[in-house]
């Protein structure tokens, strides 16, 4: 089971959970990235996400494929929000279900790191008087 989705709407957390829940699985590890009200000492009013959609799908599929080779997991789901977001809203939710809790937590933590390095997603932060594309170091591959 695999859910990889890009959405302009509020992320539906219950949909993410349902996508990975399974009677075989005792553990669901979830990571949610929310919009913070500050970054680098500046007050953030909101932001905008931009995604290279086709490559995003392909790259997240690869991440989940690698993940399944490293850990015993049952299902993975990732929903990325695009467009304009307010402070407090969720930009991303990742969930991993697994028979046992150790593998699920480890796999979920690994997935976020890979995602942040590799997924073609950009973020523009809006401040009181200006706006800026956030530059993180990236790895690519």
């Amino acid at each position, binding site marked *: 089971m695999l859910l990889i989705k890009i959405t302009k709407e509020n992320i539906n957390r219950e949909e993410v959970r349902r996508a990975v829940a399974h009677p075989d699985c005792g553990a669901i590890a979830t990571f949610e990235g929310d919009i913070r009200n500050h970054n680098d000492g500046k007050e953030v009013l909101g932001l905008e996400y931009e995604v290279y959609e086709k490559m995003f799908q392909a790259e997240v599929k690869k991440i989940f494929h690698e993940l399944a080779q490293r850990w015993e997991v049952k299902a993975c789901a990732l929903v990325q929000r695009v467009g304009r977001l307010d402070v407090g809203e969720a930009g991303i939710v990742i969930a991993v279900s697994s028979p046992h809790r150790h593998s699920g937590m480890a796999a979920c933590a690994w997935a976020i790191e890979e995602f942040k390095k590799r997924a073609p997603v950009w973020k523009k932060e809006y401040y009181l008087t200006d706006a800026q594309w956030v530059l993180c170091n990236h790895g*690519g591959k």
Partner: protein
Amino acid sequence: MKVKLLFFAMIREKIGKDEVDMEIFPGETLEQLTQRVLAPAFPHARFFKSLLYAVNEEYAGPQTILRDGDEVAFIPPVAGG
């Protein structure tokens, strides 16, 4: 030989378009194409150090030789979710 170029984030804003079709030279590499297309808009060499590329939705190195019909994306530093 033609390729399609995709622009995102600050590149898209600077260029003012999200995609263009472009003629390439036989044997032209990603790096050469990038210099032709982006150097006028981005004069600082530092910008290119942090730039990555994708060809047909896969990360590709700067020495990759382009082929007719390729879809080339310039990937400025990603910010993740």
